[in-house]
């Protein structure tokens, strides 16, 4: 997790860990010399095992820690890697090193195919499916005697001569693990890694900045499977065997526990966890095999329960502890109490390059968004029913109506979060009906949500940078440093909306009004031509509201943005809108200029009057 407080000690800690790992064979040799009864072979063997576990656990953490995915099939891919080496050697006499090179490829292929199936389902169902996949692969390994050796597995793999020395084998495994770790490390810092973090933080938000969530989840699932396959291949190499229990779903306890032991927030943490785990395993699993399971479960429970808000908050807890010692960060948080909007500079925001809206002809009567006969039914409820609506370019168009009128449903239909039952939506001449949210976002429709939608644990700056990366199609890059890209542009934009001082703070720590400002900045960063604002000033003070709408109006005007917003605050509506559509019970009641709507008796009856009565 990219939380600032942790940066200072990250590199030294990693250095100590790496040096420690490199010193295992010489120290074991020293131990042997000092105490002739103990053999150096055993500690080195344990060390090799820990290295392989590190790789396996860190590859699990790619999914768990970075993308927020819980998979129960990871052990199966590890097993696939081990079997690839073993089967190729035993059935086809392929040297183990060649098999090792193929292990990640085969595991990635199996991971990709099963991920394709599992990722049809969302989150929870996805996890259930990975369990089924895992048990299916286990059943194959257990039952396909002629190939896998059935319940016996495959034993007696032969290593090339130069690896027969266990110290050399240790360094060989260490080198392979090292290369994999460097690859994964560069991946998590890259724009691709940024997209994963965005997904973990807020799937909906990730989608609305143009990230194809499913595709990225499938990609990370496949990549993690490849590295798990490599770990499994290495296991087959140093243990010279493969057996079906490796694939059993409870075997996932190992990477999960190791990732939790080491702290899922840090990249190398699981490597430390692997060494601790190996030692625990060594001490306990022979005489207390069953109790060892209880201990593993206990560790997972302890981490999950003792960190309030779940283990995902562990890095935050550490951050809070650190803040107790250095008060700076805390005072910065206290400062952020809704003053960002006050400090905003609409003129400057409008001038910034990041806002790339296409210049449209000044003719405001050109239709930009055309909705025809749009309906959405939930069971018997007609949330939106036969809506026709045209939003003209450069208009500021408000939709009002009592609660339950279908405003939010309409927004969700436009942005692709819901699929319409019937009807069409065209944007700039293109049919976008039923397109997924990330495509619609890329087509140029931005939105803010009724509830605040940001990436809470990322910094304010990262919120913007990652949105820009996603929108500009850069998140496919698996190298480079996401945190260094578009930095100046993002900082400029933050300064313009008054968030400059808070750029490096986790966005979730800011006040409600300031989080709204982040959302607005994200919409601006995306260069949308049409921005949908779902109750943009909800929860803001009167002063914040005034400043926020001033900012919105100014930016919209200078950048030829088209606005479609719904809002309960009639002052905001009549102060900002050029066109007002009134909805009631899923249908359009009427539409007109603000002064026409204000004086429409029907509107007064269903809505305005009702408001005045309650006011």
């Amino acid at each position: 997790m990219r939380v600032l407080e942790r940066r200072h000690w990250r590199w030294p800690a990693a250095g100590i860990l790496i040096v420690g790992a490199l010193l295992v064979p010489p120290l074991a040799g020293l131990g042997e010399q000092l105490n002739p009864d103990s053999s150096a072979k055993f500690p080195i063997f344990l060390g090799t095992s820990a290295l392989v576990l590190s790789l396996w656990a860190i590859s699990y953490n790619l999914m768990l820690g970075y993308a927020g995915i819980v998979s129960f099939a990871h052990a199966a891919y590890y097993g696939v890697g081990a079997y690839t080496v073993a089967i190729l050697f035993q059935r086809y006499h392929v040297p183990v090193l060649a098999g090792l090179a193929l292990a990640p490829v085969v595991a990635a292929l199996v991971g990709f195919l099963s991920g394709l199936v599992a990722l049809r389902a969302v989150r929870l169902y996805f996890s259930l499916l990975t369990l089924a996949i895992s048990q299916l692969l286990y059943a194959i390994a257990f039952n396909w005697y002629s190939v896998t050796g059935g319940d016996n597995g495959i034993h007696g793999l032969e290593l090339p001569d130069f690896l027969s020395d266990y110290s050399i084998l240790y360094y060989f495994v260490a080198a392979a693990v090292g290369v994999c770790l460097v690859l994964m490390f560069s991946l998590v810092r890259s724009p691709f890694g940024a997209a994963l973090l965005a997904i973990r933080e807020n799937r909906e938000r990730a989608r609305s900045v143009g990230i194809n969530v499913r595709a990225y989840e499938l990609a990370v699932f496949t990549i993690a499977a490849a590295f798990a396959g490599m770990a499994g291949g290495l296991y087959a190499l140093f243990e010279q065997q493969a057996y079906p229990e490796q694939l059993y779903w409870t075997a996932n306890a190992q990477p999960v526990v190791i990732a939790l032991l080491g702290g899922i927030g840090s990249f190398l943490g699981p490597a430390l966890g692997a060494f601790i785990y190996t030692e625990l395993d060594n001490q306990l699993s022979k005489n207390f095999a069953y109790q060892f399971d209880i201990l593993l479960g206990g560790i997972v429970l302890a981490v999950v329960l003792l960190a309030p808000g779940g283990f995902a908050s562990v890095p935050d807890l550490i951050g809070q502890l650190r803040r107790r010692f250095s008060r700076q960060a805390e005072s910065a948080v206290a400062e952020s109490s809704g003053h960002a909007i006050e400090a905003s500079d609409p003129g400057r925001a409008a001038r910034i390059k990041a806002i790339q809206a296409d210049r449209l002809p000044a003719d405001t009567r050109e239709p930009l968004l055309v909705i025809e006969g749009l309906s959405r039914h939930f069971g018997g409820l007609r949330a939106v029913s036969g809506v026709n609506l045209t939003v003209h370019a450069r208009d500021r168009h408000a939709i009002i109506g009592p609660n339950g009128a279908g405003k939010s449903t309409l927004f969700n239909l436009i942005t692709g979060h819901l699929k319409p039952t019937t009807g069409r939506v065209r944007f700039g001449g293109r049919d976008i009906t039923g397109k997924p949210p990330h495509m619609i976002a890329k087509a140029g429709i931005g939105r803010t949500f009724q509830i605040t939608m940001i990436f809470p644990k990322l910094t304010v700056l990262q919120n913007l940078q990652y949105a820009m990366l996603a929108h500009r199609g850069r998140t496919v890059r698996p190298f480079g440093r996401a945190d260094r890209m578009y930095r100046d542009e993002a900082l400029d934009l933050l300064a313009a909306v008054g968030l400059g001082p808070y750029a490096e703070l986790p966005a979730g720590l800011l006040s409600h009004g300031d989080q709204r400002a982040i959302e607005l900045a994200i919409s601006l960063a995306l260069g949308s031509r049409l921005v949908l604002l779902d109750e943009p000033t909800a929860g803001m003070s009167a002063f914040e509201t005034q400043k926020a709408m001033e900012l919105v109006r100014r930016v919209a005007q200078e950048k030829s943005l088209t606005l479609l917003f719904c809002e309960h605050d009639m002052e905001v509506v009549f102060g900002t809108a050029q066109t007002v559509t009134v909805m009631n019970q899923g249908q359009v009641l009427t539409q007109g200029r603000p002064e026409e709507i204000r004086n429409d008796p029907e509107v007064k009856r269903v809505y305005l009057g009702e408001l005045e009565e309650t006011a």
Partner: protein
Amino acid sequence: MSGGQLLLFVVGGLSNAAYLFIVAAGLSLVFGALRVINMAHGSLYMIAAFVTVVVANQLGLTLGFWGGLVVAVIVTGLVGALIEVVVLRRVYGEEHLVQLLATYALTLVIAGVVRTVFGANYRTVKPPAAINFSVTLAGNSYAAYSFFMIGAAVVIGTGVYVLMYRTTLGRNIRAAVSDPELLSASGVNVARLYTVVFVIGAALAALGGAIVAPSQAVNASMDTDVLVLAFAISVIGGLGSIIGSLVGALIVGEVLSFGLQNQYTNPYAIAFVFIIMVIVLTIRPWGLFGKAEQT
């Protein structure tokens, strides 16, 4: 395949479906009300199966099984209450990720405890004497116990229906499914309601485990076996839907029965279940009777 053989497989499938439905209904009920997928559901089922075997073999053939069943439901219900109060209460409203890991941890703990207490060996128990006989239909012999399982599932399924739709408790549970905040505002102790729901879920797992015990060897990996199937049923039928559990259990039970009859398909019977899951997911990612979850 002759008619008699067909009947044999169908009945075999129904008796599979019977215990699977009881277990999956518990999983679904808990998910519907608590929005937590309980990975430890299979573990509760396993505890009950072991308790049933041990108690029944102590008490003897006439009353043993019934005594075992009652003790198993009570013990498992208590374990369920403990889990809800100590663990689940802290993870409601958390991300699914946290809930999955917490209940996954419980499966490890319970598996370790069960192996420590009961050992890793297979254990068996005979059906109660009154229904320990066989009947011959269309040339094949059937264990009367298979029909007992089917009957028990019908009774328990009806019981769950009555509980949910004819009692105040059931009304509160259904209200908790749709809007827990409103329910607590109306004066219902939601925390206690959740405990009750979880205990009912655990009791259903226990009934499944106790009823299945005389029909198969009870062993320390039956938690996973049933969990995988219960998940398959939930994915096919839709999480949170009791009707979905019934339909899913019938599909899975029959597919397993037909798949297991043939020596070539036998090892891969679970694969057929999996293929059906994939087909259902392709058409309806939230299952046949489930509700689409937002985001």
